[in-house]
């Protein structure tokens, strides 16, 4: 059985890895505030969930989008370079 080799994954830079982990932790913090407001629907939790909780969640998602879009763009550029190199090899 022959399968296509899995495409190589471009590793994330250290900064991007840390940023993605921070996004994950911010998501957990935002979720905690939102769940608190659901379990204890009193003014403080509800206001915190609707302001800080959603702010943390939005920040986390923005970081995720930034990192992943940059990563996708880099992957795309690498794939284009690889295909250009392969076609020039074939031509040669």
């Amino acid at each position, binding site marked *: 059985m022959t399968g296509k080799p899995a495409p190589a994954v471009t590793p994330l830079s250290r900064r991007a890895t840390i940023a993605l982990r921070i996004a994950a932790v911010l998501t957990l913090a935002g979720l905690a505030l939102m769940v608190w407001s659901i379990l204890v629907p009193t*003014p403080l939790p509800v206001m915190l969930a609707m302001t800080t909780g959603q702010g943390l969640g939005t920040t*986390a998602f923005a970081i995720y989008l930034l990192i992943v879009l940059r990563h996708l763009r880099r992957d795309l550029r690498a794939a284009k370079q690889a295909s250009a190199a392969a076609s020039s090899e074939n031509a040669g």
Partner: protein
Amino acid sequence: MVSWIFSNPLLAAALGCAGASALLVLWYLVRRPLLTNATKLVLLAGIGVLPIMTAATGNVAGFEATKTRRFCSSCHVMTPYGNDSSDPTSKTLAARHARNAAFGDENCYTCHADYGMYGTIITKLGGLRHVYEYTLHYRNMSLEEARATIHIRKPFPNSTCIHCHSTTGPLWDAVPEHASLLDRLRDGSVSCASAGCHGPAHPFSKGPPP
């Protein structure tokens, strides 16, 4: 509490989404996988889609929660008002309305909300003002002090009463005071809740201590 949460599909959905999101994010933090396409999709669900669904359902559930008497009376200075509304033997205007199914557990909001196109927004802004006032002025105040100090910011509008009591029904018209004061009640120059008419909705908050 569990039965209360699962009796409300919105709350159950919000908690379900939050739980699923937390699991995915924890998986990423613990396993530290490479950023493959599969990982990106897992994180899209864990950091994006599921938290957005939690926030959306949580917002709706939160807005609904802010309408309840339990929410309003969770600040200690409002507890006597909430207790009076919940008292099945109380004869106050507020308690009698709370016993009506159309008001029920949301009787504070139903009577104190502004009606009209932007009524909900105006009411929520007013609620934020309550939070501000409570945090800065009433948080450490005794109930006795608060009872003497707290007052409604602007006169209770008759339009709120007229929202249900249309002033056009034959039973309402049959009351001589209603008929004689009809125009003044409609334009708000005489309050339904004034002394001599129906009186204040929370009489224990007026006058000397009981």
